């Protein structure tokens, strides 16, 4: 069978071209170790600078926990806040130099500057039992909203402060607010947050090798021999693509194993991760074939290929969430602009498997979307490649 012969030949060539093979297989796993080196196994500890201006007046009789000034107790509460595994959530430092503290926030040496006002204890002491307004006293958060860690730290601190104020004032709210974290996110380390992105990165990398594998036949002129033979374009590209998918799955598995080795916890099945990865690889390979249609040699691929590569990396949510641009809705599900990119669904599917332990049936939409998009992209890739490199001129 011609398909199998091309498959075998492409595999042999790939193995013999070991530098590209190593790059493909080892780049994402290498990043796993680099990130692990940066972040280690620790959960994220947020840096908080406190300027405690509280004039430590004696609290009024009748307020709870009245043997210590309120500012000091608040600081202790923050310091004592821990993750379920016992790791401190905040790394707290106190300062009196506001300007130096703000500079540290701007330099991202810490995430939140908490300013406790002079009247903090007094305000709490004069508040009525129902927690009515003391008036004119405010706790201030200072932070950089472009720093994603500030958003998270401020949210955590806000919850702690609300609880603290309720407790000090003896307020019992008619409706309690309870926070539950999806999946096992609460105990995720910062390193673990980056792993899904690296898994998708391992898959996206084959865009280049798929394009190079296809276009090098044109570059070396061997495509003329294939054009003269009985080989059909679909057979040729199908075999080349299958090899890329195998390589991609191998890279994905290797990346995942490396991550697990250094402590990454997979909530779902590794097999499901590989299923998502294999389907995603087909779609990326199809984009690689489309790229190859616009290139004449490997050098072209390394330049022109950067356009689809970065579009995928930035617009599919691999690196950071993209704003939703609604296109239309199907069966109550909103279809966004980024949904036309298969990796957007790969990210979503991997997130569900890795963090929430989702099974394949729970990934119906994502897998369906990847399959449909892959078929469309593959058809476009075959058509474009044939038109550019394999048809009669």
């Amino acid at each position, binding site marked *: 069978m011609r398909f199998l012969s091309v498959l075998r*030949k492409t595999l042999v060539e790939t193995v013999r071209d070991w530098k590209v093979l190593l790059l493909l297989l080892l780049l994402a796993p290498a990043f796993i170790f680099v990130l692990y080196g940066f972040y280690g196994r620790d959960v994220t500890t947020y840096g908080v600078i406190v300027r405690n201006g509280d004039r430590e007046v004696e609290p009024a009789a009748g307020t709870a926990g009245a043997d210590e000034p309120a500012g000091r107790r608040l600081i202790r509460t923050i310091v004592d806040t821990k993750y379920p595994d016992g790791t401190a959530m905040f790394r707290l430092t106190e300062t009196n130099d506001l300007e130096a503290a703000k500079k540290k926030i701007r330099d991202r040496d810490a995430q939140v500057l908490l300013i406790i006002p002079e009247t903090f204890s007094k305000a709490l002491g004069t508040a009525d039992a129902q927690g009515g307004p003391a008036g004119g006293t405010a706790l201030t958060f200072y932070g950089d909203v472009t720093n994603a860690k500030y958003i998270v730290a401020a949210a955590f601190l806000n919850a702690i402060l609300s609880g603290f104020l309720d407790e000090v004032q003896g307020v019992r709210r008619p409706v309690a607010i309870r926070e539950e974290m999806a999946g096992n996110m609460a105990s995720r380390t910062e390193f673990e947050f980056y792993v899904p992105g690296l898994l998708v990165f391992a898959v996206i990398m084959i865009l280049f090798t798929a394009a190079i594998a296809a276009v090098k036949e044109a570059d070396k002129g061997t495509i003329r021999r294939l054009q003269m033979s009985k080989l059909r374009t679909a057979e040729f590209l199908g075999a080349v693509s299958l090899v890329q998918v195998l390589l991609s799955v191998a890279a994905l598995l290797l990346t995942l194993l490396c991550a697990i080795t250094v402590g990454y916890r997979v909530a779902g099945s590794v097999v499901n991760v590989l299923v998502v990865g294999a389907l995603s690889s087909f779609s990326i390979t199809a984009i690689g074939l489309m790229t190859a249609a616009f290139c004449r040699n490997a050098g072209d691929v390394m330049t022109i290929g950067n356009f689809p590569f970065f579009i995928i990396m930035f617009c599919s949510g691999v690196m950071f969430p993209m704003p939703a641009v609604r296109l239309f809705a199907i069966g109550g599900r909103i279809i966004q602009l980024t949904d036309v990119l298969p990796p957007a669904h790969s990210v979503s599917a991997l997130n569900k498997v890795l963090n929430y332990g989702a099974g394949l049936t729970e990934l119906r939409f994502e897998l369906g979307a990847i399959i449909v998009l892959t078929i469309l992209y593959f058809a476009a890739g075959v058509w474009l490649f044939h038109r550019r490199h394999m048809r009669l001129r």
Partner: protein
Amino acid sequence: MNAGTKECTADGIAIEVRGLTKRFGSITAVDNLCLEIRRGEVFGFLGPNGAGKTTAINMICGLLRPDAGRVVIHPSTDGSKEAAGDPRRTIGLCPQAICVWESLTCLEQLEFMGRMYDVGRREARARGLALLETLGLAEKKNKLAKTLSGGMQRRLNIILALVHEPAILILDEPQAGLDPQSRVLVREFIRNVARLKTVILTTHEMDEAERLSERVAIIDRGRLLVCDTPENLKGRIGEGEVLEITFAEGQGAQLEAALPELRANADNVQVKGEVVSFVCRDAAAVFPAVAGLLKVKDLRVVDIKIRQKTLEDVFIHYTGRGLRE
């Protein structure tokens, strides 16, 4: 219709080319080319670089769509299934550039090409080994193509066109870049192949075309100038040998003045720079008269020789230019 079609009968024709034309923008690469290539002959396409040989070959192979005209590949008389199918399957093409899979061994790529034509794995391997043997590459069968010398790669380039046993073999500049030893090997190989197949050879080297081709088509600027056997072509520019005189530089005016008298001694006089060639029935007999004239006109001569006519003389006769100009 050109001279090459005169003696053909329908049964003996392997390829018919009718009014083939190809334009690239404002350039007409092949202009109304008409040919009939006979079954079993070695047919030479001779012309300078850029004459349109490769474009014509690509259209004959089906790799390039003509703007006008058509190519008819006649099935072989043995009625083989292969020949009756897509014309491209009956042709083996050895491209001008070396087109090999660098990371495959010699034998692997021959097997692979065989498989691309649905030749069984064992058969493809057997054919590959036999072909490697014939072109002196048997010892290199397990070497990666990228480790072969340029000459060996070119030999591999040739046999890759043969593994599916095509009825017609097209060799586009097969000897370009070959060392003398490989040239001899390839020449013998082409002669052997020609016993069984129709061979079309493009070259700008008239010696090779003359040595190998039974008939030669001379093409220039996309147009067929003439097509016949090398002997007949040489006969068209006059009988006898060529008396070739190379003059010292800087005698343009004197040479110009002497030309009318020099022409009186020969059928065909060609001037290319400082070189003047006369086609003479009896060069030895003409030589004393020419030598006397040179003395009278006080023309300084660098070299004088009497040689046989070549296809280059034919080309110069028809175009006024050399093949390498």
